[in-house]
């Protein structure tokens, strides 16, 4: 008898088997809850500047950020960012200053507003479309009646099981081949 039918016997409701998983969910939930809090002091000037640098493209390099590059243009931008962070400017102000000099291509992350929003929206849209398509296909299949089983099919299966039983495996029904 399988484990699930063991639980079917009276006195052990089916949901008991799920208790370890419920406990697991609680444990993980608590841990993640604690783990997602970023306690501690607010970001220092250097940390803020570094965070902004990581999102600005180095103008004379091949796609790496200003934070990662030691090119002269990157160093200059880091300096300006640091000065402006010290002066209390917001991230958006600093970004718009750099864009006013280099154009929108200076930011590594395409802006979410405007036409570039497409690059952010397209993947979730494709995912949604694919999931809907898959669900539709599977639903259509499920709502069809199951394929009728012919006598040939049954005979094939009996033969296969007999072969296996003939090889001495346990757990199968022994049926003489037709």
């Amino acid at each position: 008898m399988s484990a699930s039918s063991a639980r079917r016997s009276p006195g052990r409701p089916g949901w008991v088997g799920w208790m370890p998983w419920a406990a697991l969910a609680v444990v993980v939930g608590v841990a993640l809850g604690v783990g997602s809090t970023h306690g501690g002091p607010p970001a220092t000037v250097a940390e803020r500047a570094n965070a902004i640098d990581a999102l600005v493209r180095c103008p004379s390099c091949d796609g790496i950020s200003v934070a990662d590059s030691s090119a002269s243009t990157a160093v200059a931008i880091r300096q300006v960012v640091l000065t402006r962070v010290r002066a209390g400017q917001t991230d958006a102000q600093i970004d718009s200053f750099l864009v006013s000099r280099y154009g929108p291509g200076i930011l590594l992350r395409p802006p979410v507003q405007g036409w570039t929003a497409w690059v952010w929206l397209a993947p979730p849209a494709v995912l949604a479309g694919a999931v809907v398509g898959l669900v539709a296909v599977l639903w259509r299949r499920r709502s069809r009646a199951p394929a009728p089983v012919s006598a040939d099919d049954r005979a094939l299966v009996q033969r296969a099981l007999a072969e296996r039983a003939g090889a001495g495996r346990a757990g199968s029904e022994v049926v003489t081949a037709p």
Partner: protein
Amino acid sequence: MTQTEGATARPELRRRHTARWVAGVILVVGAALVALLATSPPQSATEVDTPLVGQAAPDIAGATLGGGSFDLAALRGRWVVVNFFASWCPPCQQEEPELVAFAYAHRSPGDAALVGVVFDDAASSAHSFMQSTGASWPAVIDPDGQLALNYGVRGPPETFIVAPDGTVVVHLDGPVTAASLDHWLVLAKQGRS
């Protein structure tokens, strides 16, 4: 299997064209992609569209290679060509004789002025580079790259043409020739009259 085929024959007819439709869509998208990749951008080889075009030219002030000092504001009222260069970049070496020719052609007072800005280079190297090519216009030292940043320079050589009222008229990326500079100057002057 024969029985199952019979049972699913009807739905089979309905789905018959799925692959064809999907293939059609992919073909259209693919053709668009190929067409896109096959066409080059509709810009001339060196003009760059940056936000600075049409804005006031950021100030250029500082020590020059020759030991003096320079201030762009002093040249207000004249057309100014600002050239960011370095001694180590081959296109800069390529355009230097052209700039010398341009400077000579416009040597009369009040005519278009030429200013260089050193981009990420040792002052001595830049100085000997200019001297060896016979360049005599002022070249401003940019020790911390802030001038280049203010002009949105990605890498030398880049050239800006500034109108007498101080606005940037055009931003050119790459080595220029005397002829192309004259051409742009003429266009710019026409655009302003």
